[in-house]
């Protein structure tokens, strides 16, 4: 696998949104800075973990990368192409190359569509051939029986729903997938299954992945590098091994120390 070509280059990214709760009757609402001066690259075949607490801006960062949001400053390059302010119609032909898996599969799967049609959605939009074949392949890849294509999302368990979300994302064989907190709503066993599945897919399909999570414990399973966000700023960006062995920032250490390990002898005092 070539390590030299960055799939994503993010340079000095800023994002601010209007705070409508503070808006006065006349005049414009004050701006809140959600992302502040963020720069990093994602290499081909890499799995980058993005970690932070609630309100750290990690989901906003993810959604900006795949241009569900438009940044206020800075540049985003996808495979060398500047997509920072690309209008939606110019983005559309690119869209099948970066996909997203959502946190809540109940909300991200249209409840009135059958699984098969959900997975076929992106394929149809981008004019792929052999659509039902590709859909069935995607089901195979995520380990769901093909008969599931006739079911509705509410007829599946949480882990199965998340697999459908993954199948939809990989069906177009994208170059990049953003996974936003995809295991946080699952039981430990389904969580382990989904993470293992994702690790296998990364290896088999050569995927490049950004994996957003609030949980450092699941990051270690999957990611080669980790980016730690706090209040919209990068406080640490290092290889997974370095991060867990010798975290450089206080915040990372605080996050690590706060994780309750399943071990009654762990020293877990408040600092």
């Amino acid at each position, binding site marked *: 696998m070539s390590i030299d070509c960055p799939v994503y280059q993010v340079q000095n990214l800023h994002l601010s949104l209007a705070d409508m709760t503070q808006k006065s009757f006349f005049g414009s609402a004050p701006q809140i800075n959600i992302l502040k001066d963020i720069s990093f690259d994602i290499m081909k075949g890499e799995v980058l973990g993005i970690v932070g607490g609630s309100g750290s801006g990690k989901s906003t960062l993810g*959604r900006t990368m*795949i241009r*569900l949001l438009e940044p206020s400053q800075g540049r985003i390059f996808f495979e060398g192409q500047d997509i920072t302010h690309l209008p939606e119609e110019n*983005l*559309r*032909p690119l*869209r*099948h190359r*970066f*996909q*997203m898996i*959502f*946190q*809540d599969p109940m*909300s*991200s*799967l*249209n*409840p*009135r*569509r059958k699984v098969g049609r959900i997975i076929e*959605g*992106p394929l149809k*939009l*981008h004019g792929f051939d052999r659509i039902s074949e590709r859909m069935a392949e995607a089901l195979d890849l995520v380990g769901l029986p093909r008969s599931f294509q006739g079911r*509705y999302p*509410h007829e599946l368990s949480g882990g199965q729903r998340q697999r459908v979300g993954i199948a*939809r994302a990989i069906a177009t064989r994208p170059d990049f997938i953003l996974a936003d907190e995809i295991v946080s709503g699952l039981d430990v066993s389904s969580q382990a299954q989904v993470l293992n599945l994702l690790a296998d897919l990364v290896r088999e399909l050569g995927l490049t992945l950004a994996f957003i999570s609030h949980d450092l414990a699941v990051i270690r399973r999957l990611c080669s590098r980790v980016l730690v966000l706090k209040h919209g700023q990068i406080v640490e960006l290092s290889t997974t091994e370095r991060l867990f062995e010798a975290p450089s920032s206080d915040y990372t250490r605080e996050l690590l120390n706060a994780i309750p390990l399943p071990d009654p002898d762990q020293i877990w005092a408040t600092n």
Partner: protein
Amino acid sequence: MREHRKKTKQRLGIRLWLSGGWLLVLIAIALLAPWISPKNPLEQDLFAARLPPFWMAGAEPGFWLGTDSLGRDVLSRILEGSRIALLVAFIAGTATCLIGATLGMIAGFYRGWADRIISRFVDIWMAFPPVLFAILLVAVIGTGLTSIIIAIVVIDWTRFCRVVRAEAMTQGQMDYVASAQVAGQKRFGIMIAEILPNVIPTIVALLTLEMGIAIIVETILSFVNLSISSDAPTWGGMIAEGRTSIYQAWWVLIFPLIVLFLTVLSFSQFGEGLKDRYDPVLR
């Protein structure tokens, strides 16, 4: 778990069958009214005025539900009246639905200036007292079926608009919409392919409810003498007439009222029943 669900589903099926059955019978009656009416609904016979229904003393054979103060057969008039009732229900209901739901979808999904314009318009519209508004309207454009239908649309489209807007807004915030955008779907495509199927159950329930309401509005307008001409038998007209002779001939009021009540109830229950039966998402 599953079996339990199936059972409730079956019980709800009865509601669908009862209401649907009544509406089907009504449609058949409306289509066949000229042939199945025992008497001519317009024929007056002052010597046969205020005849009671068949089981009471003094009833005349052939006048099953009695006659009104002009000697017209109540049953025949109810059967004939179903034509206008259903015409009003279907045409006014559908038109109201199309206009209100379309505007509501646009406002709720696209938000922004489209929403601001439509919502302000709805707010202003709703500040008028609706029946007064309709009376004024019929007074201006004249009586007749068309003006009744227009009046109903004008009064009620805001109800659709508000409900559908709220529903489209809720659905628009779901991740499957973001997901369709990530997939490269156009905004309009998302509205039609993703949002609409999820708003349809609400629209259907509202539509059938609206069909019932349309009949009631027609009745109200009849009550203030602004409906179709007073000759043409409408349920509302009959109720209005019956009111004047309630002590002498209660049947002139009561029978159309019962039919009206059952029909309006059936419309709303039919909508709910359809939702329970065909909506893939069990709530």
